[in-house]
């Protein structure tokens, strides 16, 4: 079983990207399961995921703070036992620091063959997020294997270039891609880079 964690602040487009990735991954014959703990308005339980019959597990964290990590480990163990999927795609709350989450998973589930962290950057709200929650955004960038600058359709080229500069300073080794999850632009390339 392999693990893909999709991180990013609330409203950065994680669910939209997840749904698109789920669609294309299952079309290539991969068995998928989904774990979500997003606290926004868009759930993954509708639309394509339901039609495809993919197992979706919701993570309950009580007051959504410290117990999230342990809930994830137990959930992954249950999914492995029940479905043995090729990939589990995890969408943690946009407030999660994926580094801590993955550290816990790697410690207690060493049998996971491969784990990848995709962090989405909200280009449309970059300035606001930098000024308000910069430590959280930086932590999400630092933990990433792949960083997707999303919503590039909402800003001009100069802004995207500036964002990429900051992103690169936070994480010198991650692959960086530009995408628009809503239009689908760049998602094919992103999937190739991730898997």
């Amino acid at each position, binding site marked *: 079983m392999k693990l893909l964690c999709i991180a990013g602040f609330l409203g950065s487009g994680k669910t939209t990207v997840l749904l698109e990735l789920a669609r294309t991954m299952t079309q290539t014959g991969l068995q998928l399961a989904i774990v979500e703990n997003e606290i926004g308005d868009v759930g993954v339980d509708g639309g394509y995921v339901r039609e495809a019959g993919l197992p979706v597990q919701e993570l*309950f964290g*009580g*007051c959504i*703070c*410290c*117990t999230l990590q342990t809930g994830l*480990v137990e959930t992954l163990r249950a999914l492995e036992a029940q479905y043995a999927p090729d990939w589990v795609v995890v969408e943690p709350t946009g407030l999660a620091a994926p580094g*801590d989450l993955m550290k816990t998973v790697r410690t207690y589930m060493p049998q996971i063959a491969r784990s990848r962290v995709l962090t989405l950057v909200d280009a449309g709200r970059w300035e606001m997020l930098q*000024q308000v929650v910069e430590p959280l955004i930086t932590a999400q960038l630092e933990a990433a294997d792949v960083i997707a600058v999303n919503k590039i359709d909402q800003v001009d080229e100069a802004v995207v270039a500036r964002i990429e500069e900051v992103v690169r300073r936070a994480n010198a080794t991650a692959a960086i891609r530009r995408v628009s999850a809503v239009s689908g632009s760049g998602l094919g390339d992103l999937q190739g880079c991730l898997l």
Partner: protein
Amino acid sequence: MANEALYQQRAERIEKAVRCEPVDLIPTLFMGQAFAPRWMGMTTAQYCTDPEGACAATLGTLERLGDVDGVNLWSVGYHTVNLSTQWLSKVLMPGKDLPDDALWQVVERETMTLEDYDAIAADGWQPFLESFLPKVVDMEMFQAHMGWLVNEYPHQLEKFKAAGYVPVVGGISTIPFEVLCGGRSMNSFFMDLYRDPARVKAALDAMVPAMVENAIAACALSGIPRAWLGGWRSASAMLAPKLWDEFVWPYYYDISMALIEKGITPVLHWDQDWTRDLARLKELPARTCILNPDGMTDIRKAKELLDGHMAIMGDLPAAILSVGTPDDVYAYIEALVRDVGPTGLILCPGCDGPIDSKPENFEAFVAASREFGRVS
């Protein structure tokens, strides 16, 4: 030793730790709000709707664990009412919205409007709260909750004392940031901080007096001179320093000082990572507060900065209790005592022992704490 004498000994041990004085044994506390009912064979649905039963499950857990000095926070009254009032949020209830033995779930949705900031600033916190609560709480349950606190809570506390266990927390509070961040939802609240900080700040300032008053009243009612001051949405790991300095720390400082002036010890129950700003705690008077991190803050850095100035309570991570082994627990507690003890340390689960904690890990926590925590 008779329970009364045991209680006195344990209470004194905790007080010495708070004052960073030498102890015979490092105090050890239980905290596992959802673990206790499950271990005692009670559903979370019962736990949320039967306050006496919740107390009995907690006390039963202490007795089953045996040699602990007391309990940090546990469910007092109707648990989901506490959560709703703290975060101005609806809470999905086991037995009603969720299966009988599921974990309750705070719903992160916007319940407050932008105009509500103005109403709080103009009218004060208490009038706003009273008009707002029906949006997020079943008011019948709220009335039952308040009645229980006044009429029954003191009797329940006596049962803990009679059994020899120290209830550490007498009142529950937080800073205004945490409350309004819940009500607006994090996404909207953070945008409000960016777009209209003055409007937010006016509301935060207006909330402080009533929040202090409520915390003092709760401590007076319980007779326990310690108040839980929680936080995680306002953690250093979340917020940019400039905003933390303006919207977070001044409120922790002011509320803590107001409590300290009344002889109440603030228990700074800080979930998430607060390492960046730990040095600010030195601004509070020495030996008057407890820092209670959850395993994410660098507790060794806290010891380095606050040694002799502030007691540290923690911080066995939830992950170890839930998916670790007794050996993991032993290793963690041994290192914690070596690096952070023996003075000014109170051993406790970080944040809250999760619902699926392994009982053998809690037992190992108590055994390891007593083995490595013996000073003389």
